[in-house]
Protein backbone atom coordinates (compact mmCIF):
# COMPACT_ATOMS: atom_id res chain seq x y z
CA UNK A 1 0.00 0.00 0.00
CA UNK A 2 2.64 2.51 1.01
CA UNK A 3 5.86 2.71 -0.92
CA UNK A 4 9.17 2.71 1.00
CA UNK A 5 8.55 2.56 4.71
CA UNK A 6 9.39 -0.09 7.32
CA UNK A 7 12.17 -2.39 6.04
CA UNK A 8 10.70 -5.71 4.94
CA UNK A 9 12.80 -7.99 7.23
CA UNK A 10 11.77 -5.93 10.27
CA UNK A 11 8.15 -6.27 9.15
CA UNK A 12 8.47 -10.04 8.94
CA UNK A 13 10.14 -10.18 12.34
CA UNK A 14 7.24 -8.23 13.87
CA UNK A 15 4.64 -10.39 12.16
CA UNK A 16 6.35 -13.59 13.30
CA UNK A 17 6.37 -12.38 16.91
CA UNK A 18 2.70 -11.35 16.73
CA UNK A 19 1.72 -14.64 15.08
CA UNK A 20 3.71 -16.51 17.72
CA UNK A 21 1.85 -14.78 20.54
CA UNK A 22 -1.46 -15.50 18.80
CA UNK A 23 -0.85 -19.21 18.35
CA UNK A 24 0.96 -19.74 21.66
CA UNK A 25 -2.24 -20.84 23.48
CA UNK A 26 -2.95 -23.35 20.69
CA UNK A 27 0.52 -24.88 20.93
CA UNK A 28 0.34 -24.98 24.71
CA UNK A 29 -2.99 -26.79 24.76
CA UNK A 30 -1.91 -29.27 22.08
CA UNK A 31 1.27 -30.03 24.01
CA UNK A 32 -0.56 -30.36 27.35
CA UNK A 33 -3.15 -32.71 25.89
CA UNK A 34 -0.36 -35.18 25.10
CA UNK A 35 1.00 -35.30 28.66
CA UNK A 36 0.13 -38.05 31.11
CA UNK A 37 -1.19 -37.52 34.66
CA UNK A 38 2.16 -38.39 36.22
CA UNK A 39 3.84 -35.88 33.95
CA UNK A 40 1.61 -33.12 35.29
CA UNK A 41 2.22 -34.15 38.90
CA UNK A 42 5.99 -34.08 38.61
CA UNK A 43 6.15 -30.76 36.75
CA UNK A 44 2.78 -29.00 36.33
CA UNK A 45 4.13 -26.11 34.29
CA UNK A 46 6.31 -27.92 31.76
CA UNK A 47 5.86 -26.78 28.17
CA UNK A 48 6.67 -30.06 26.53
CA UNK A 49 5.57 -33.60 27.39
CA UNK A 50 8.30 -35.76 28.93
CA UNK A 51 6.67 -38.65 27.08
CA UNK A 52 3.96 -38.45 24.45
CA UNK A 53 0.72 -40.24 25.27
CA UNK A 54 -2.75 -40.44 23.78
CA UNK A 55 -4.23 -41.63 27.10
CA UNK A 56 -6.14 -38.40 27.60
CA UNK A 57 -7.92 -38.75 24.28
CA UNK A 58 -8.72 -42.39 24.91
CA UNK A 59 -10.13 -41.50 28.32
CA UNK A 60 -12.22 -38.68 26.83
CA UNK A 61 -14.09 -41.01 24.54
CA UNK A 62 -14.14 -44.09 26.80
CA UNK A 63 -15.18 -42.65 30.13
CA UNK A 64 -15.78 -38.90 29.83
CA UNK A 65 -18.66 -39.20 27.35
CA UNK A 66 -17.09 -37.19 24.54
CA UNK A 67 -18.32 -39.67 21.93
CA UNK A 68 -21.89 -38.72 22.79
CA UNK A 69 -21.11 -34.99 22.90
CA UNK A 70 -19.41 -35.24 19.52
CA UNK A 71 -22.40 -37.06 18.03
CA UNK A 72 -24.73 -34.38 19.43
CA UNK A 73 -22.58 -31.55 18.11
CA UNK A 74 -22.44 -33.15 14.67
CA UNK A 75 -26.19 -33.80 14.61
CA UNK A 76 -27.04 -30.26 15.73
CA UNK A 77 -24.59 -28.84 13.17
CA UNK A 78 -26.10 -30.99 10.40
CA UNK A 79 -29.64 -29.81 11.22
CA UNK A 80 -28.48 -26.19 11.46
CA UNK A 81 -26.55 -26.24 8.17
CA UNK A 82 -29.42 -27.94 6.30
CA UNK A 83 -31.92 -25.42 7.63
CA UNK A 84 -29.70 -22.45 6.85
CA UNK A 85 -28.79 -23.52 3.33
CA UNK A 86 -32.43 -24.22 2.45
CA UNK A 87 -34.10 -21.37 4.35
CA UNK A 88 -31.31 -18.91 3.59
CA UNK A 89 -31.33 -19.69 -0.14
CA UNK A 90 -35.11 -19.37 -0.41
CA UNK A 91 -35.42 -16.14 1.55
CA UNK A 92 -32.23 -14.56 0.18
CA UNK A 93 -33.32 -15.29 -3.39
CA UNK A 94 -36.82 -13.90 -2.80
CA UNK A 95 -35.44 -10.69 -1.26
CA UNK A 96 -33.01 -10.17 -4.14
CA UNK A 97 -34.97 -11.37 -7.16
CA UNK A 98 -38.72 -11.44 -6.53
CA UNK A 99 -41.02 -8.43 -6.36
CA UNK A 100 -43.67 -8.89 -3.74
CA UNK A 101 -45.80 -6.81 -1.45
CA UNK A 102 -44.29 -6.49 1.99
CA UNK A 103 -40.74 -7.16 0.79
CA UNK A 104 -39.43 -4.14 2.67
CA UNK A 105 -41.02 -5.46 5.84
CA UNK A 106 -39.46 -8.88 5.23
CA UNK A 107 -36.03 -7.33 4.75
CA UNK A 108 -36.47 -5.20 7.86
CA UNK A 109 -37.19 -8.42 9.76
CA UNK A 110 -33.88 -9.89 8.59
CA UNK A 111 -32.05 -6.75 9.70
CA UNK A 112 -33.85 -6.71 13.05
CA UNK A 113 -32.93 -10.35 13.63
CA UNK A 114 -29.30 -9.57 12.75
CA UNK A 115 -28.97 -6.94 15.44
CA UNK A 116 -31.00 -8.63 18.16
CA UNK A 117 -28.82 -9.39 21.18
CA UNK A 118 -29.15 -12.92 22.49
CA UNK A 119 -29.62 -11.78 26.06
CA UNK A 120 -32.79 -9.90 25.09
CA UNK A 121 -34.49 -12.96 23.65
CA UNK A 122 -33.27 -16.07 25.40
CA UNK A 123 -35.79 -16.15 28.26
CA UNK A 124 -38.85 -16.23 25.96
CA UNK A 125 -36.94 -18.48 23.53
CA UNK A 126 -36.50 -20.90 26.39
CA UNK A 127 -40.22 -20.72 27.21
CA UNK A 128 -41.18 -21.30 23.56
CA UNK A 129 -38.88 -24.32 23.47
CA UNK A 130 -40.29 -25.68 26.73
CA UNK A 131 -43.84 -25.33 25.41
CA UNK A 132 -42.92 -26.99 22.11
CA UNK A 133 -41.70 -29.92 24.20
CA UNK A 134 -38.21 -29.62 22.71
CA UNK A 135 -36.14 -29.08 25.84
CA UNK A 136 -33.33 -31.61 26.03
CA UNK A 137 -33.52 -32.54 22.34
CA UNK A 138 -31.06 -32.00 19.50
CA UNK A 139 -33.75 -30.20 17.49
CA UNK A 140 -34.36 -27.88 20.44
CA UNK A 141 -30.65 -27.04 20.55
CA UNK A 142 -30.63 -26.27 16.81
CA UNK A 143 -34.01 -24.57 16.54
CA UNK A 144 -33.32 -20.85 17.16
CA UNK A 145 -30.44 -20.97 14.62
CA UNK A 146 -32.34 -22.99 12.01
CA UNK A 147 -32.47 -20.04 9.57
CA UNK A 148 -29.99 -17.40 10.70
CA UNK A 149 -30.48 -13.88 9.34
CA UNK A 150 -26.83 -13.88 8.30
CA UNK A 151 -27.55 -16.76 5.89
CA UNK A 152 -30.41 -14.84 4.28
CA UNK A 153 -28.17 -11.80 4.07
CA UNK A 154 -25.28 -13.66 2.43
CA UNK A 155 -27.49 -15.24 -0.26
CA UNK A 156 -29.29 -11.95 -0.88
CA UNK A 157 -26.01 -10.09 -1.41
CA UNK A 158 -24.80 -12.78 -3.79
CA UNK A 159 -28.07 -13.14 -5.71
CA UNK A 160 -27.92 -9.42 -6.45
CA UNK A 161 -24.93 -10.12 -8.72
CA UNK A 162 -26.83 -12.62 -10.89
CA UNK A 163 -28.34 -10.88 -13.94
CA UNK A 164 -32.13 -10.60 -14.04
CA UNK A 165 -32.11 -11.46 -17.77
CA UNK A 166 -31.16 -15.04 -16.94
CA UNK A 167 -34.21 -15.51 -14.74
CA UNK A 168 -36.41 -13.53 -17.13
CA UNK A 169 -35.44 -15.83 -20.00
CA UNK A 170 -36.59 -18.86 -18.04
CA UNK A 171 -39.79 -17.02 -17.11
CA UNK A 172 -40.52 -16.31 -20.78
CA UNK A 173 -39.97 -20.00 -21.50
CA UNK A 174 -42.80 -20.68 -19.09
CA UNK A 175 -40.84 -21.98 -16.10
CA UNK A 176 -42.53 -21.63 -12.71
CA UNK A 177 -40.87 -19.61 -9.93
CA UNK A 178 -39.84 -22.67 -7.95
CA UNK A 179 -38.41 -24.22 -11.10
CA UNK A 180 -36.43 -21.05 -11.85
CA UNK A 181 -35.09 -21.03 -8.31
CA UNK A 182 -34.07 -24.66 -8.49
CA UNK A 183 -32.78 -24.96 -12.04
CA UNK A 184 -31.42 -21.49 -12.78
CA UNK A 185 -30.50 -19.86 -9.48
CA UNK A 186 -29.28 -22.74 -7.30
CA UNK A 187 -26.66 -24.02 -9.77
CA UNK A 188 -25.18 -20.52 -9.85
CA UNK A 189 -25.34 -19.95 -6.10
CA UNK A 190 -22.51 -22.31 -5.13
CA UNK A 191 -20.18 -19.74 -3.56
CA UNK A 192 -22.97 -18.15 -1.49
CA UNK A 193 -24.18 -21.55 -0.31
CA UNK A 194 -20.61 -22.56 0.59
CA UNK A 195 -20.23 -19.40 2.69
CA UNK A 196 -23.64 -20.03 4.28
CA UNK A 197 -22.66 -23.61 5.09
CA UNK A 198 -19.44 -22.53 6.75
CA UNK A 199 -20.93 -19.63 8.69
CA UNK A 200 -23.84 -21.67 10.02
CA UNK A 201 -21.60 -24.63 10.86
CA UNK A 202 -19.33 -22.27 12.76
CA UNK A 203 -22.24 -20.68 14.60
CA UNK A 204 -23.63 -24.07 15.54
CA UNK A 205 -20.32 -25.68 16.51
CA UNK A 206 -19.21 -22.78 18.70
CA UNK A 207 -22.60 -22.04 20.22
CA UNK A 208 -22.40 -22.27 23.98
CA UNK A 209 -25.03 -20.40 26.02
CA UNK A 210 -28.12 -21.72 24.26
CA UNK A 211 -27.06 -25.39 24.38
CA UNK A 212 -26.08 -24.82 28.01
CA UNK A 213 -29.65 -23.71 28.74
CA UNK A 214 -31.52 -26.24 26.59
CA UNK A 215 -29.42 -29.36 27.11
CA UNK A 216 -30.11 -30.26 30.70
CA UNK A 217 -29.00 -33.89 30.72
CA UNK A 218 -25.58 -35.11 29.69
CA UNK A 219 -27.20 -37.19 26.93
CA UNK A 220 -28.00 -33.99 24.98
CA UNK A 221 -24.80 -32.05 25.80
CA UNK A 222 -22.93 -30.66 22.82
CA UNK A 223 -19.12 -30.56 22.89
CA UNK A 224 -18.70 -27.06 24.41
CA UNK A 225 -21.23 -27.82 27.16
CA UNK A 226 -19.64 -31.21 27.77
CA UNK A 227 -16.20 -29.61 27.91
CA UNK A 228 -17.33 -27.02 30.47
CA UNK A 229 -18.87 -29.79 32.58
CA UNK A 230 -15.76 -31.95 32.28
CA UNK A 231 -13.61 -29.05 33.36
CA UNK A 232 -15.72 -28.47 36.46
CA UNK A 233 -15.67 -32.14 37.33
CA UNK A 234 -11.91 -32.37 36.76
CA UNK A 235 -11.16 -29.42 39.03
CA UNK A 236 -11.27 -31.65 42.09
CA UNK A 237 -8.94 -34.26 40.65
CA UNK A 238 -6.84 -31.73 38.69
CA UNK A 239 -6.87 -33.91 35.60
CA UNK A 240 -5.44 -31.17 33.38
CA UNK A 241 -4.46 -33.47 30.52
CA UNK A 242 -8.00 -34.72 30.11
CA UNK A 243 -9.47 -31.22 30.02
CA UNK A 244 -6.84 -29.97 27.58
CA UNK A 245 -7.48 -32.93 25.28
CA UNK A 246 -11.18 -32.04 25.44
CA UNK A 247 -10.35 -28.47 24.44
CA UNK A 248 -8.42 -29.76 21.43
CA UNK A 249 -11.31 -31.99 20.34
CA UNK A 250 -13.68 -29.01 20.55
CA UNK A 251 -11.57 -26.55 18.60
CA UNK A 252 -9.71 -28.73 16.12
CA UNK A 253 -12.51 -29.41 13.58
CA UNK A 254 -13.21 -25.70 13.09
CA UNK A 255 -9.54 -24.77 12.91
CA UNK A 256 -8.90 -27.52 10.35
CA UNK A 257 -11.88 -26.41 8.30
CA UNK A 258 -10.67 -22.84 8.55
CA UNK A 259 -7.20 -23.82 7.40
CA UNK A 260 -8.58 -25.39 4.24
CA UNK A 261 -11.37 -22.94 3.48
CA UNK A 262 -9.97 -19.63 4.71
CA UNK A 263 -11.18 -17.93 1.54
CA UNK A 264 -14.84 -18.64 2.26
CA UNK A 265 -14.55 -17.61 5.89
CA UNK A 266 -12.96 -14.34 4.86
CA UNK A 267 -15.63 -13.73 2.23
CA UNK A 268 -18.34 -14.35 4.78
CA UNK A 269 -16.91 -11.77 7.14
CA UNK A 270 -16.02 -9.22 4.49
CA UNK A 271 -19.42 -9.47 2.81
CA UNK A 272 -21.31 -8.60 5.92
CA UNK A 273 -18.94 -7.17 8.49
CA UNK A 274 -20.39 -9.68 10.93
CA UNK A 275 -19.33 -12.87 12.61
Amino acid at each position, binding site marked *: *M*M*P*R*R*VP*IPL*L*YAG*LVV*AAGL*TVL*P*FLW*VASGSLRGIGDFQSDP*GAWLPSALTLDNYAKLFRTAGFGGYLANSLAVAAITVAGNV*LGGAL*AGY*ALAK*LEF*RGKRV*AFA*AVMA*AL*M*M*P*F*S*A*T*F*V*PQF*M*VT*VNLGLIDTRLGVA*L*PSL*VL*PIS*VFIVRQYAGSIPDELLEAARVDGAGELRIFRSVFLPLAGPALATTTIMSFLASW*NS*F*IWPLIVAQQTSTYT*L*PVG*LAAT*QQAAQNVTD*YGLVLAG*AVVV*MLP*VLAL*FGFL*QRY*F*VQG*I*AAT*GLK
Partner: protein
Amino acid sequence: MAEPTVVSPGASRLRRARGKRSHTAIGWAFMLPFGIVFLLFTAVPIVASLATSLTDMRSTDMRTPFGVDFVALANYGTLLGDSQFLKAVLNTVVFVAVGVPLTMLVGFTLALALDSGIRRFRTTFRGLFYAPVVTNIVSVALIWQYAFNQSGTVNEVLAKLGFAGPNWLGDVHLAMPVVILLGIWRNFGTAMLLFLAGFQAVPESVLEAAAIDGAGPLRRLWSITLPLLMPTTLLVSVLLSVFFLQVFDEPYLLTDGGPLGSTESIALYTYNQFGFGNFGVSSAASYVLLVFVVVFSAVQFRLLRPRS
Protein backbone atom coordinates in the same frame (compact mmCIF):
# COMPACT_ATOMS: atom_id res chain seq x y z
CA MET B 1 -59.59 -16.60 -8.80
CA ALA B 2 -62.45 -15.38 -10.98
CA GLU B 3 -61.40 -12.02 -12.31
CA PRO B 4 -63.92 -10.25 -14.54
CA THR B 5 -62.61 -10.26 -18.08
CA VAL B 6 -63.51 -6.73 -19.05
CA VAL B 7 -61.59 -4.89 -21.70
CA SER B 8 -61.36 -1.42 -20.29
CA PRO B 9 -58.73 1.19 -19.52
CA GLY B 10 -58.38 -0.51 -16.15
CA ALA B 11 -57.62 -3.93 -17.60
CA SER B 12 -53.88 -3.62 -17.80
CA ARG B 13 -53.79 -2.25 -14.31
CA LEU B 14 -55.87 -5.20 -13.17
CA ARG B 15 -53.62 -7.70 -14.89
CA ARG B 16 -50.61 -6.11 -13.30
CA ALA B 17 -52.26 -6.25 -9.91
CA ARG B 18 -53.08 -9.91 -10.41
CA GLY B 19 -49.54 -10.69 -11.49
CA LYS B 20 -48.26 -8.90 -8.44
CA ARG B 21 -50.64 -10.75 -6.18
CA SER B 22 -49.49 -14.17 -7.32
CA HIS B 23 -45.90 -13.02 -6.89
CA THR B 24 -46.72 -11.85 -3.41
CA ALA B 25 -47.89 -15.33 -2.48
CA ILE B 26 -44.74 -16.84 -3.98
CA GLY B 27 -42.51 -14.26 -2.34
CA TRP B 28 -43.92 -14.99 1.09
CA ALA B 29 -43.81 -18.72 0.46
CA PHE B 30 -40.07 -18.35 -0.16
CA MET B 31 -39.79 -16.34 3.06
CA LEU B 32 -41.68 -18.96 5.06
CA PRO B 33 -38.86 -20.99 6.68
CA PHE B 34 -37.07 -17.84 7.77
CA GLY B 35 -40.40 -16.30 8.75
CA ILE B 36 -41.41 -19.12 11.07
CA VAL B 37 -38.07 -19.15 12.88
CA PHE B 38 -38.11 -15.35 13.01
CA LEU B 39 -41.61 -15.24 14.49
CA LEU B 40 -40.99 -17.96 17.08
CA PHE B 41 -37.47 -17.01 18.12
CA THR B 42 -37.11 -13.29 17.46
CA ALA B 43 -40.42 -11.43 17.04
CA VAL B 44 -42.45 -13.20 19.71
CA PRO B 45 -39.55 -13.28 22.20
CA ILE B 46 -38.80 -9.60 21.79
CA VAL B 47 -42.41 -8.66 22.53
CA ALA B 48 -42.69 -11.31 25.23
CA SER B 49 -39.48 -10.03 26.80
CA LEU B 50 -40.88 -6.52 27.05
CA ALA B 51 -44.15 -7.88 28.44
CA THR B 52 -42.28 -10.11 30.90
CA SER B 53 -40.23 -7.15 32.10
CA LEU B 54 -43.49 -5.53 33.25
CA THR B 55 -44.61 -8.54 35.30
CA ASP B 56 -43.48 -10.43 38.37
CA MET B 57 -42.88 -13.60 36.36
CA ARG B 58 -40.70 -16.25 37.95
CA SER B 59 -39.44 -19.61 36.72
CA THR B 60 -42.40 -21.32 38.40
CA ASP B 61 -44.82 -19.49 36.07
CA MET B 62 -43.23 -20.91 32.93
CA ARG B 63 -46.09 -23.12 31.82
CA THR B 64 -48.77 -20.57 32.75
CA PRO B 65 -47.16 -17.37 31.50
CA PHE B 66 -50.46 -15.48 31.44
CA GLY B 67 -51.22 -16.01 35.11
CA VAL B 68 -48.66 -13.47 36.35
CA ASP B 69 -49.26 -10.02 37.82
CA PHE B 70 -48.62 -6.75 36.04
CA VAL B 71 -46.15 -4.70 38.05
CA ALA B 72 -45.58 -1.82 35.58
CA LEU B 73 -42.03 -0.51 35.91
CA ALA B 74 -41.28 -2.08 39.28
CA ASN B 75 -38.59 -4.37 37.81
CA TYR B 76 -36.82 -1.40 36.29
CA GLY B 77 -37.01 0.27 39.69
CA THR B 78 -35.48 -2.87 41.20
CA LEU B 79 -32.62 -2.61 38.72
CA LEU B 80 -31.91 1.01 39.59
CA GLY B 81 -31.84 0.09 43.26
CA ASP B 82 -29.59 -2.95 42.77
CA SER B 83 -25.97 -1.98 43.25
CA GLN B 84 -24.88 -5.15 41.42
CA PHE B 85 -26.80 -4.08 38.31
CA LEU B 86 -25.29 -0.60 38.42
CA LYS B 87 -21.89 -2.24 38.79
CA ALA B 88 -22.68 -4.44 35.77
CA VAL B 89 -23.55 -1.34 33.73
CA LEU B 90 -20.30 0.28 34.78
CA ASN B 91 -18.34 -2.90 34.00
CA THR B 92 -19.96 -3.08 30.55
CA VAL B 93 -19.00 0.55 29.89
CA VAL B 94 -15.40 -0.32 30.87
CA PHE B 95 -15.46 -3.36 28.55
CA VAL B 96 -16.49 -1.15 25.64
CA ALA B 97 -14.36 1.89 26.49
CA VAL B 98 -11.14 -0.11 27.00
CA GLY B 99 -11.73 -3.17 24.84
CA VAL B 100 -12.88 -1.48 21.64
CA PRO B 101 -9.99 1.00 21.14
CA LEU B 102 -7.35 -1.61 22.04
CA THR B 103 -8.88 -4.23 19.73
CA MET B 104 -8.94 -1.64 16.94
CA LEU B 105 -5.34 -0.69 17.60
CA VAL B 106 -4.13 -4.30 17.39
CA GLY B 107 -6.29 -5.03 14.34
CA PHE B 108 -5.19 -1.86 12.58
CA THR B 109 -1.50 -2.42 13.28
CA LEU B 110 -1.61 -5.96 11.93
CA ALA B 111 -3.60 -4.94 8.87
CA LEU B 112 -1.08 -2.18 8.18
CA ALA B 113 1.82 -4.60 8.56
CA LEU B 114 0.18 -7.09 6.19
CA ASP B 115 -0.46 -4.34 3.67
CA SER B 116 2.99 -2.81 3.65
CA GLY B 117 4.49 -4.64 0.73
CA ILE B 118 5.04 -8.17 1.97
CA ARG B 119 4.13 -10.86 -0.53
CA ARG B 120 5.13 -14.20 0.89
CA PHE B 121 3.11 -15.85 3.69
CA ARG B 122 0.62 -12.97 3.66
CA THR B 123 -2.38 -15.35 3.57
CA THR B 124 -0.77 -17.55 6.22
CA PHE B 125 -0.29 -14.62 8.59
CA ARG B 126 -3.79 -13.40 7.92
CA GLY B 127 -5.11 -16.87 8.70
CA LEU B 128 -3.13 -17.17 11.93
CA PHE B 129 -4.31 -13.77 13.15
CA TYR B 130 -7.88 -14.63 12.32
CA ALA B 131 -7.81 -18.10 13.95
CA PRO B 132 -8.84 -16.83 17.43
CA VAL B 133 -12.12 -15.51 16.00
CA VAL B 134 -13.23 -18.95 14.82
CA THR B 135 -11.93 -20.83 17.86
CA ASN B 136 -14.37 -22.19 20.37
CA ILE B 137 -14.52 -19.84 23.34
CA VAL B 138 -14.96 -22.60 25.93
CA SER B 139 -11.64 -24.13 24.90
CA VAL B 140 -9.89 -20.79 24.84
CA ALA B 141 -11.25 -19.61 28.18
CA LEU B 142 -10.09 -22.85 29.72
CA ILE B 143 -6.56 -22.29 28.43
CA TRP B 144 -6.61 -18.76 29.82
CA GLN B 145 -7.81 -20.00 33.19
CA TYR B 146 -4.87 -22.36 33.45
CA ALA B 147 -2.49 -19.72 32.17
CA PHE B 148 -3.60 -17.08 34.69
CA ASN B 149 -3.88 -19.43 37.66
CA GLN B 150 -1.94 -18.60 40.83
CA SER B 151 0.44 -21.38 39.78
CA GLY B 152 -0.27 -20.97 36.07
CA THR B 153 1.98 -20.45 33.09
CA VAL B 154 2.01 -16.66 33.26
CA ASN B 155 3.14 -16.61 36.87
CA GLU B 156 5.71 -19.26 36.15
CA VAL B 157 7.25 -17.05 33.49
CA LEU B 158 7.12 -14.11 35.90
CA ALA B 159 8.80 -16.21 38.58
CA LYS B 160 11.66 -17.01 36.22
CA LEU B 161 12.07 -13.26 35.73
CA GLY B 162 12.14 -12.81 39.49
CA PHE B 163 8.62 -11.51 40.11
CA ALA B 164 6.00 -13.02 42.38
CA GLY B 165 2.89 -13.29 40.22
CA PRO B 166 -0.49 -12.38 41.67
CA ASN B 167 -3.68 -14.46 41.63
CA TRP B 168 -4.91 -12.74 38.47
CA LEU B 169 -8.47 -14.00 38.26
CA GLY B 170 -9.05 -13.83 42.01
CA ASP B 171 -8.03 -10.20 42.37
CA VAL B 172 -10.72 -7.51 42.22
CA HIS B 173 -8.42 -5.19 40.26
CA LEU B 174 -6.62 -7.67 38.02
CA ALA B 175 -9.50 -9.93 36.90
CA MET B 176 -11.04 -7.26 34.67
CA PRO B 177 -7.87 -6.61 32.61
CA VAL B 178 -7.46 -10.35 31.99
CA VAL B 179 -11.10 -10.69 30.89
CA ILE B 180 -10.74 -7.68 28.57
CA LEU B 181 -7.51 -9.14 27.19
CA LEU B 182 -9.39 -12.30 26.22
CA GLY B 183 -12.01 -10.13 24.51
CA ILE B 184 -9.27 -8.38 22.54
CA TRP B 185 -7.55 -11.64 21.61
CA ARG B 186 -10.83 -13.03 20.38
CA ASN B 187 -11.88 -10.00 18.29
CA PHE B 188 -8.79 -8.35 16.82
CA GLY B 189 -8.93 -10.71 13.81
CA THR B 190 -12.28 -9.27 12.79
CA ALA B 191 -10.94 -5.72 13.07
CA MET B 192 -7.86 -6.68 11.05
CA LEU B 193 -9.93 -8.19 8.26
CA LEU B 194 -12.20 -5.16 7.98
CA PHE B 195 -9.24 -2.76 7.97
CA LEU B 196 -7.58 -4.85 5.25
CA ALA B 197 -10.75 -4.47 3.18
CA GLY B 198 -10.79 -0.75 3.97
CA PHE B 199 -7.24 -0.24 2.68
CA GLN B 200 -8.53 -1.05 -0.81
CA ALA B 201 -10.22 2.36 -0.72
CA VAL B 202 -6.87 4.13 -0.35
CA PRO B 203 -5.49 4.65 -3.87
CA GLU B 204 -1.84 3.77 -4.34
CA SER B 205 -1.38 6.71 -6.72
CA VAL B 206 -2.28 9.28 -4.07
CA LEU B 207 0.23 7.78 -1.66
CA GLU B 208 2.92 7.72 -4.33
CA ALA B 209 2.21 11.33 -5.25
CA ALA B 210 2.53 12.31 -1.61
CA ALA B 211 5.81 10.38 -1.34
CA ILE B 212 7.18 12.23 -4.34
CA ASP B 213 6.16 15.49 -2.72
CA GLY B 214 8.33 14.51 0.22
CA ALA B 215 5.77 13.23 2.72
CA GLY B 216 7.30 10.64 5.05
CA PRO B 217 5.60 7.33 5.95
CA LEU B 218 4.09 8.66 9.18
CA ARG B 219 2.88 11.80 7.45
CA ARG B 220 1.26 9.74 4.68
CA LEU B 221 -0.41 7.49 7.25
CA TRP B 222 -1.71 10.46 9.21
CA SER B 223 -2.76 12.75 6.36
CA ILE B 224 -3.92 10.31 3.67
CA THR B 225 -4.56 6.78 4.86
CA LEU B 226 -6.35 7.59 8.09
CA PRO B 227 -8.76 10.20 6.67
CA LEU B 228 -9.63 7.97 3.69
CA LEU B 229 -10.12 5.05 6.07
CA MET B 230 -12.62 6.95 8.21
CA PRO B 231 -15.73 5.01 7.07
CA THR B 232 -14.03 1.69 7.86
CA THR B 233 -12.80 2.97 11.20
CA LEU B 234 -16.30 4.06 12.13
CA LEU B 235 -17.76 0.76 11.02
CA VAL B 236 -15.22 -1.29 12.98
CA SER B 237 -15.70 0.80 16.11
CA VAL B 238 -19.47 0.41 16.04
CA LEU B 239 -19.27 -3.29 15.24
CA LEU B 240 -16.84 -3.98 18.09
CA SER B 241 -18.88 -1.82 20.44
CA VAL B 242 -21.88 -4.05 19.77
CA PHE B 243 -19.76 -7.15 20.48
CA PHE B 244 -18.31 -5.74 23.69
CA LEU B 245 -21.69 -4.36 24.85
CA GLN B 246 -23.02 -7.91 24.77
CA VAL B 247 -19.94 -9.44 26.38
CA PHE B 248 -20.95 -12.64 28.14
CA ASP B 249 -18.76 -15.65 27.33
CA GLU B 250 -15.47 -14.17 28.51
CA PRO B 251 -16.51 -13.17 32.06
CA TYR B 252 -18.87 -16.14 32.42
CA LEU B 253 -16.20 -18.67 31.58
CA LEU B 254 -13.16 -16.99 33.13
CA THR B 255 -14.48 -15.57 36.39
CA ASP B 256 -18.25 -16.11 36.45
CA GLY B 257 -18.48 -12.36 36.98
CA GLY B 258 -16.28 -12.44 40.06
CA PRO B 259 -14.47 -11.73 42.22
CA LEU B 260 -17.17 -9.77 44.05
CA GLY B 261 -18.99 -8.97 40.81
CA SER B 262 -16.02 -7.01 39.49
CA THR B 263 -16.28 -8.54 36.00
CA GLU B 264 -20.04 -9.06 35.73
CA SER B 265 -21.47 -7.58 32.52
CA ILE B 266 -25.11 -6.64 31.87
CA ALA B 267 -25.56 -9.78 29.75
CA LEU B 268 -24.16 -11.93 32.54
CA TYR B 269 -26.40 -10.17 35.09
CA THR B 270 -29.37 -11.00 32.84
CA TYR B 271 -28.34 -14.64 32.72
CA ASN B 272 -27.81 -14.82 36.47
CA GLN B 273 -31.23 -13.34 37.24
CA PHE B 274 -32.69 -15.93 34.85
CA GLY B 275 -30.83 -18.59 36.82
CA PHE B 276 -32.27 -17.25 40.10
CA GLY B 277 -35.73 -17.61 38.52
CA ASN B 278 -36.38 -13.84 38.42
CA PHE B 279 -37.60 -13.77 34.81
CA GLY B 280 -39.18 -10.31 35.20
CA VAL B 281 -35.99 -8.65 36.46
CA SER B 282 -33.91 -10.58 33.92
CA SER B 283 -36.09 -9.35 31.05
CA ALA B 284 -35.96 -5.77 32.30
CA ALA B 285 -32.15 -5.89 32.41
CA SER B 286 -32.05 -7.41 28.93
CA TYR B 287 -34.21 -4.55 27.63
CA VAL B 288 -31.81 -1.98 29.02
CA LEU B 289 -29.03 -3.76 27.11
CA LEU B 290 -31.25 -4.03 24.03
CA VAL B 291 -31.69 -0.26 23.88
CA PHE B 292 -27.90 0.23 23.91
CA VAL B 293 -27.36 -2.43 21.24
CA VAL B 294 -30.13 -1.23 18.96
CA VAL B 295 -28.82 2.33 19.02
CA PHE B 296 -25.28 1.13 18.17
CA SER B 297 -26.56 -1.30 15.51
CA ALA B 298 -28.75 1.33 13.90
CA VAL B 299 -25.69 3.53 13.56
CA GLN B 300 -23.79 0.55 12.14
CA PHE B 301 -26.33 -0.14 9.41
CA ARG B 302 -26.50 3.51 8.53
CA LEU B 303 -22.74 3.40 8.01
CA LEU B 304 -22.88 0.15 6.04
CA ARG B 305 -25.65 1.19 3.67
CA PRO B 306 -23.80 3.45 1.22
CA ARG B 307 -21.18 0.76 0.67
CA SER B 308 -23.48 -2.16 -0.11
